[in-house]
């Protein structure tokens, strides 16, 4: 019983952390139409920077500044934002597929840099020497993990509320207009360049928070954690949940992470030995099927984007394609 609860806590923590990243992607893609193919770079920047800012000093390595944890996490988000700012200025003129390719390249470069820059990030060994906040005080174990889960859920909720408020405001209206038709938005006096950059940075800061929490949870981050597969997983979560819908983004994160872990377990349990060697690859293929299948059969995702209708001082939402109330 305790084993099951422990596992559920563990599972939910990872799923909730990833859900934060999916929310960040939803701001960029779902609301602004920015195709970020390098989610993992901003996630990774947040993770590495949080551990560098908050970790204990390690020999021959940058960092170990041992900052108080909230500062370390904010620092991680800040670094992810600065990276997004630089990448954004260079690439946001690019349209859809080109932006995707450019950001994908950034993510691959980031992983390679982390893998090789030992003085900066511990190289292939990854970053160690991070002491999880309050870990000793609580003696670790289930109590600690439960508390950590609660903190992650509170942050998830905060990000969710922040984004909901944002996308119901004129800011969100502007993002959607740019997503729908940039030329028309310009002809109505709007400056897409500025707002695209703002959206890209904001989404990336949220991804950085997700990465920072991820690194905190494992007290460790290595190049293995910032492989392209994570970008695909996060995209699958958004597509399955429903781009443009924050509730869908969160639901998609839990669903896909559940399917991912379940498929891993099932493969290790039931698949023949020869197949088990390729568990990772098989899962890779499965997630590809999920993305393609969803795009074919239900492109709007499980939770469809809601239309913002705001009559008589009241803002409400309504199904985009469904019948009228």
């Amino acid at each position: 019983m305790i084993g099951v609860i422990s596992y559920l806590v563990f599972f939910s923590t990872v799923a909730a952390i990833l859900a934060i990243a999916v929310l960040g992607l939803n701001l960029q893609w779902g609301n602004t139409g920015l195709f970020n193919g390098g989610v993992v770079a901003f996630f990774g920047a947040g993770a590495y920077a949080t551990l560098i800012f908050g970790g204990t000093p390690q020999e021959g390595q940058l960092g170990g500044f041992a900052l108080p944890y909230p500062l370390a996490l904010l620092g991680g988000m800040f670094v992810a934002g600065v990276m997004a700012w630089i990448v954004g200025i260079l690439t946001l003129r690019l349209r859809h597929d080109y932006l995707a390719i450019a950001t994908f390249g950034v993510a691959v470069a980031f992983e390679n840099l982390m893998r090789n820059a030992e003085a900066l990030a511990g190289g292939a060994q990854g970053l160690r020497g991070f002491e999880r906040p309050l870990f000793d005080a609580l003696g670790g174990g289930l109590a600690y993990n439960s508390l950590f889960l609660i903190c992650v859920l509170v942050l998830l909720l905060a990000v969710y509320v922040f984004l909901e408020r944002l996308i119901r405001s004129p800011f969100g209206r502007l993002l959607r207009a740019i997503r729908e038709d940039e030329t028309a938005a310009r002809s109505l006096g709007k400056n897409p360049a500025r707002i695209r950059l703002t959206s890209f940075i904001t989404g990336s800061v949220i991804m950085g928070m997700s990465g920072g929490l991820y690194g905190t949870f494992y007290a460790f981050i290595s190049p293995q954690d910032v492989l392209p597969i994570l970008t695909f997983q996060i995209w699958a979560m958004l597509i399955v949940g429903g781009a443009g819908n924050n509730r869908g983004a969160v639901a998609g994160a839990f669903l896909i992470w559940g399917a991912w872990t379940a498929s891993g377990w099932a493969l290790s349990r039931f698949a023949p030995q020869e197949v088990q060697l390729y568990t990772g690859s098989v899962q890779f293929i499965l997630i590809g099927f999920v993305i393609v299948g969803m795009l074919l059969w239900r492109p709007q995702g499980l939770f469809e984007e809601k239309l913002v209708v705001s009559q008589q001082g009241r803002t409400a939402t309504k199904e985009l394609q469904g019948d009228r109330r």
Partner: protein
Amino acid sequence: MDDTILSLRGITRDFGPFRAVDDVSLDIERGSITGLIGPNGAGKTTLFNVLTGALEPTAGSVMLNGRDVTGLAPDHLFSAGLGRTFQIPRPFARMSVLENVMLAPGGQVGERLHGPFLQSASMHRQETTIRDRAIEVLDFVTLLPLADQAAGQISGGQMKLLELARVLMGDPQVILLDEPAAGVNPTLTKLLISKIEELNRQGRTFVIIEHDMDFVMQHCTPVIALAEGRVVFRGTPEEAQKDPLLLEAYLGAVAVD
């Protein structure tokens, strides 16, 4: 002349070796409804695109209210008082009709990232004003019953009206309409004309590209004809109907009846 609101001098636009607009000089009178006609490919839309900053001119200059606005970006030109609609409507498809219209006003504090959080009181005040005005404008173009509909799902003619509504929200002095009546049924066209004339009486200047000769001849003065990128005629509708060159080149079919 001081009653010129929009003045073009030597506007030329090339696409590679092809000259779409060729040395066009025009003065648009303040308070006029100017009709712009010409065969397909004459360069009418291209001229609009140059005027509104969507395209850079290869040569020439544009003055709006005596101010040189050549090469300004479309967003700046809209703020300067020049609004336009598109020949092929460009609705924000997955947004409600109301949101489409509420987008247009400038200077919205809620359009900044911190607006909804740090300036929420003034944002809400602005939103109320903008919403009231949007409802007014939608009512004006008879789209109010569709306010909560996705803009991508309304009819083509309604999209034309939506384009007009969006432009009106910005309160421009000069409104460029690219074939507002194309694909719009006669009843709706009549309505559109009455709306244009009402707005014109309130002081707005219109430049209208239109292939519907009845529309142009009855409601536009002056009429300007473009052919192969050049201005080939400028005068009243009566003169247009008597001009031998125009009759031959463009109005042949109309002149018979």
